[in-house]
């Protein structure tokens, strides 16, 4: 099963290598990893999607926590989170299909950010299922290139009663 793990780390040189080293050394499978600084510049946050059973995930979090640079590890899988990933996709488009693609992308609230003679570049954000749905809908037109970021996740704020 896929787990989303949020890791707060000190923003030291080499910290990304330490984390990714740990995954490769212990044979854990990273599906995606996003890292950036946070509201505090000395701290970075990683969102790691890792595939494994409960036991593996328990090991992942425990082993991560042993690293000196790691401040906090949270498994977000069972939390109520918002997840987003960014997709850039280049799809074949000529005068005939362009309109149809643009209409289609409107439904997904995706944007056309570049128009070439024979192709378009589309930008979209969303959770995994939405990104998948977009790609599926574009399939028939001919996808030429895909660039995706990993998943960024944030726990939802508590709602007022």
């Amino acid at each position, binding site marked *: 099963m896929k787990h989303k793990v949020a890791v707060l780390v000190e923003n030291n040189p080499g910290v990304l*290598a330490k984390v990714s080293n740990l995954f490769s050394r212990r044979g854990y499978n990273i599906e995606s990893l996003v890292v950036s600084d946070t509201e505090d510049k000395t701290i970075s946050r990683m969102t790691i999607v890792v595939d494994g059973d409960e036991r593996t995930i328990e*090991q992942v979090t425990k082993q991560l926590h042993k690293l000196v640079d790691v401040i906090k590890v949270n498994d977000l899988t069972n939390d109520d989170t918002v997840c987003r990933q960014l997709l850039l996709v280049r799809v074949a488009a000529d005068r005939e299909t362009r309109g149809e693609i643009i209409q289609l992308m409107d439904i997904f609230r995706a944007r056309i950010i570049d128009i070439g003679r024979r192709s378009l570049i589309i930008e979209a954000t969303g959770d995994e299922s939405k990104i998948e749905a977009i790609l599926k809908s574009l399939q028939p037109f001919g996808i030429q290139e895909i660039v995706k970021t990993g998943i960024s996740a944030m726990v939802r704020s508590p709602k007022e009663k």
Partner: protein
Amino acid sequence: MQFICMNLRKDSQEVLFLVLGADILLHCLEAHDVDVVFGLPGGVVIPLYDRLKHFPNIKHILTRHEQGAAHAADGYARATGKVGVCFATSGPGATNLVTGIATANMDSIPMVCIMGQVVKELLGKDGFQEAHMTGICQPICKHTYAVTDAAQLPDIVAEAFFVAKTGRPGPVVIDIPKDVFVQDVQVPYDNGTVRNRIMMKYTPCQVNKEKVSKVAQLIQSAEKPMMVIGGGVNTRIENRDVVYSIAQKADMPVSTTLMARGVFPANNPYDVGMPGMHGTVEANYTVQHCDCLIAVGMRFDDRVTSNVSSFAPNAKTIVHVDIDPAEIGKTVTVNFPLVAEASEFLDALHDALPQCAHKAWMEEVQQSRYELKSPAGSVLPPKETFAFIDQYVDENTIVVTDVGQHQMWAALFLNTAGPRKFITSGGLGTMGFGFPAAIGSQFAFPDQNVILITGDGSFQMNMQELAIMKKFKLPIKICLMNNGFLGMVHQWQKMFYEENYSETILDSAPDWAKLAEAYNLNYMRIDTLEQCNEQLAAALTSKEGWFIDFRIDANADVYPMVPAGKGLDDIVVGE
């Protein structure tokens, strides 16, 4: 010269000094109670070595190879429980430490390894003797620090020592560019502080007394309880008595892993010896038949469990006590996890335990004891030979081993007297560890009798350090179990590879007598048990160093043996 003697003002804070980075480092080492450092200089650390003479409290031992320095610092740490320290220059000097760091890491030994690095300007440009040591060492140590400014040194050194010895101990690497050693810094000087977050992260939580009471109940209500103790129990000398008293109160057998050999007293109904691949019949019997297994400060290494799926099949409860939460549930499924420092747990358990009685079980355990038989006609059989050596193993003896058959014989047949008296490379199984580790132990305890049990293969991996024995007239007793083989591998080839002895024959050995003579060592050759009887006393009780060349039976193998992949029930006890 801008150097101001800081020793006088060690405790004063907020005093402005202008000092060299090298001085700050050495001062900090002094402040952390470092009295011996093992190392070997080179280009980028000359400025560090240049300042050594101003710090007379730090004794530097020049090894002949950096691997020797790392293992010696490790041996020092194992014998004392303090942090071992070694120095090396950048590039090849530092890479030579790597095996030693990995060895310490696998056995959770506290060390601080200080490595020179090329000047900052050259970093990342493949400068002469540059190697990316923090990258190389990261997967094989507890933490790495790359220093960029000498003013960071007090805090980094303080934190390095803290991290090395707190929680689950381990080696820490500090990488220091040459220009940091010669950097003039103005520091409001103190001995450095450990960040709060790091302090909290590694300081073990207090043992949960309620859970310990539950463990006591489990032991009392179990029919067949047992305890297995591991390296974590070496943290305190008193643990010998505490565990023995627990065994008596609980009326249950205790098994000691390789890393805990000697911690538990031998030759009593509770002691079943070592479990696992080369464990005793009774230890493995006990593990396989117990209904409640209390594991303390051990990590269920595959050499202990053998085939995990058939490990301790009757244990309804496995209690795992470890300081490192990541160890719990890593290999063996545990139904009673308890994160705690071993000594604290043992004290609490001792208090919580009522007097129990497991008479039938204790009897069953005694029934399972098996007396190993030596091969018929053997002139110098290991078991009997080690029994002679064991006569000279007392509370003032530290036994250090290398890796191979001789290591297992030492573990099976020598009875050392408590924690930190049996020093061996368990997790990594590093041949060449023994001799430098024996040197480190002897420097730690000049008055103890350090007996090295080594093999002809292992000894040849670090015998350059004989020069240290010569220089300091160290009274180490080198017992070379000379079988002319890479014996342990030879045994596997015999048992599992149809006697295809591919590259395990150690011919062209040096003339050991001449080698000993070359380094001013006393030499003795032992061919028979009679000679053990007549001659060993002179060497093993001597105040001088000895090289004892045991012509151990080359055909004798290590038994018992559980073939790799088999369950602990499938135990081979001889040919």
